[in-house]
């Protein structure tokens, strides 16, 4: 039985408080040994000198668009993009066609990922059937079938009563509810963050209070029901603060932030760049800094991309009618490492925010390098400089606001259960 020996790398495994020069031995797709100067006869050796050896990244907010919208992305291309970004596990949102509100679609995605994918895929079931906000989905069966959480991402659950029941019902099966928080009446027909830039550009604004109001409601419902709540893509100062206060009170709430919300501001919309159009919208500098502070002080549990591929025809239109969202799997790592460079967070926290912490949110046994764990590993060169060329992305879609941007840091090799699924 020949294994794989990863030698001379700097192993960072925040779940186990490891940050040391160690060798790592893989056998049968699992990590069997971590130690100094491991020597194993007939093991295949990967020299990781100068590289970080981290758990494969975990992205808990991805739109794979499969089934139904395969012209944007599918399980194969989406997981290939994941592998290229160092991501070995991802959770995919249910706004596919049909919706992930039944066992058949859940199984289809899992099976396709297992047979043809380059990453582990964990489906997120919808809270309500058909994302219609009327009746709960069969969460018990979906959880048993492999769904790890429930969300109506893309739309909020408007009825507070139904959100209450969703939190209670999901908690019956020990699953979290992921909230896409926006008060639609406040959003109105807004297309970007409400503020000076929107005023200048003459675009209708989405006020921060649209997010804060719904975040406050959902936190209150989580507090009331005792259910587990995860806030998707927090983007405002207010919602970060609401989560911070709720955690201090002991509410079972976690949250995530996207790289674009901690990197960009609504200034990026200038020029009516539809690749800077997303939901929630890019916010003010003050909001961006609050998200960064939330990452630094532990309020924010995870960095998640909200990878939202769209066809060129859906973006190459007037700003007001362009679709929301950007691809993110292949820019997650460098944009997060940029925070380390800027001393917002240290390297260990950065890795934790992309590995064990998101894994914990959705309750999966990934994101660590513990002995016995699946050998999902990223070999990262944190210093390599490269330029983002949209045509070189592995996703089917090219909608990124970071085209031409100088990036620093990338995965050199990505291993999925011991198999190399990406190599630069």
């Amino acid at each position, binding site marked *: 039985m020949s294994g794989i020996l990863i030698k001379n790398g700097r192993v960072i495994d925040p779940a186990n408080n490891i940050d040391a020069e160690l060798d790592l031995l893989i056998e049968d797709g699992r990590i069997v040994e971590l130690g100094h100067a491991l020597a194993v006869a007939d093991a295949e050796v990967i020299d990781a000198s100068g590289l970080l050896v981290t758990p494969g990244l975990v992205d808990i907010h991805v739109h794979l668009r499969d089934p139904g919208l395969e012209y944007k992305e599918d399980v194969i291309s989406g997981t290939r993009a994941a592998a290229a970004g160092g991501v070995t596990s991802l959770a995919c949102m249910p706004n596919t066609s049909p919706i992930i509100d039944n066992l058949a679609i859940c199984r289809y995605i899992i099976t396709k990922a297992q047979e043809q994918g380059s990453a582990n895929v964990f489906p997120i079931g919808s809270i309500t*059937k058909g994302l219609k906000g*009327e*009746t*709960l*989905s*069969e*969460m*018990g*069966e979906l959880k048993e079938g492999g769904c790890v959480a429930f969300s109506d991402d893309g739309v909020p659950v408007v*009825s507070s*009563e*139904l959100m209450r*029941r969703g939190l*209670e*019902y999901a*908690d*019956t*099966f020990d699953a979290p509810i992921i909230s896409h928080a926006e008060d639609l009446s406040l959003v109105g027909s807004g297309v970007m963050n409400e503020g000076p830039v929107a005023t200048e550009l003459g675009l209708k604004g989405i006020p921060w209070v649209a997010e804060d109001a719904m975040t406050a409601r959902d936190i209150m419902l989580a507090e009331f*029901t005792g*259910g587990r709540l995860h806030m998707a893509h927090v983007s405002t100062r207010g919602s970060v603060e609401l989560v911070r206060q709720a955690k201090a009170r002991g509410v079972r709430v976690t949250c995530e932030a996207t790289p674009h919300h901690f990197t960009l501001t609504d200034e990026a919309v200038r020029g009516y760049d539809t690749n800077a159009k997303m939901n929630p919208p890019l916010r003010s500098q003050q909001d961006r800094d609050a998200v960064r502070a939330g990452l630094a002080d532990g309020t924010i549990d995870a960095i998640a991309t909200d990878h939202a591929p769209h066809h060129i025809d859906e973006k190459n239109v007037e700003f007001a009618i362009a679709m929301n969202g950007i691809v993110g799997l292949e820019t997650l790592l460098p944009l997060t490492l940029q925070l380390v460079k800027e001393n917002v967070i240290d390297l260990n926290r950065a890795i934790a925010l992309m590995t064990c912490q998101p894994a914990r949110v959705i309750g999966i046994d990934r994101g660590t390098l513990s002995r016995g764990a699946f050998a999902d590993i990223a070999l990262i060169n944190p210093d390599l400089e490269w330029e983002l060329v949209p045509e070189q992305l592995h996703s089917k879609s090219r909608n990124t606001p970071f085209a031409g941007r100088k990036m620093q840091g990338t995965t050199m090799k990505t291993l999925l259960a011991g198999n190399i699924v990406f190599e630069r």
Partner: protein
Amino acid sequence: MNFSHRHVLGIKQFNADELNFILDTAESFKEINTRKIKKVPTLRGKTIINLFFEASTRTRTSFEIAGKRLSADTVNISGSSSSVVKGETLEDTARNIESMHPDIIVMRHGASGSSEYLAARLDCSVVNAGDGTHEHPSQALLDAFTIRQHKGEISGLKVAIIGDITHSRVVRSNIDCLNKLGAEVLICGPKTMLPPGLERLGCRLVSGLTEALTDADVVMMLRIQRERQGKTLIPSLREYARYFGLNETNLKLAKPDAIVMHPGPMNRGVEISTAVADGPQNVILDQVENGVAVRMALLYLAAGGEQQSED
């Protein structure tokens, strides 16, 4: 035993001795129901009005038979035929009925607290046949009676109550009754159907059906109230049956001699499978049969416990 309750409003008003006394009294009436001539003159000359503001054929019939077997004159007034539909208040309706000098009013009403409301305003005895989702003492007592019949002793038994706790008419009475009689009561259901503070009623919440059923002596399945629960509490009856329905497989978790109970009417294939509902462990029809004896005891005790001489 000195039984000094003019009204039977809920289990709450009784202590363990009184509950046992009611069950013992029911025991002595039970035999009458199997006689050739199923009638004793105990309540001869008494008038009982069954005032049912909600349809409940089973409970009303059981009370009616109980009254008749004790030789009382029983009259049924249902919500639809009464003056309620004409806008009369509950108090006026009751006062009108009381003017006819009944000895006992047996009332089923959709509003929790309605039987206490009535008892506070009338001179005759009031027997609560279910007030909203508050108390349903005769059902809880017939359940206890049935358990005692099959298990001998209630104290020390593990009783699992499973289903829609929020909307159950009977479960609060059941928990209180079984708790006072010394049973360990476990409660299980989807969290959308578990109201807060259940532990304070004297039971233990468990997280899933497996834990609830394991080593249970008694399994009580509650009815899914399709008409009450609306559409936000569970996704489908199919999923409910899968995670909270009793079937031959999960019943094996309970003790081999566990009994299965259901207050009826059953949704077969939802909270209980037909195989279990008709299976060897079910005592569901015993519950119905015992209902008459228990209600005879309640009517007798509410009427003052006086024996009419046989001649």
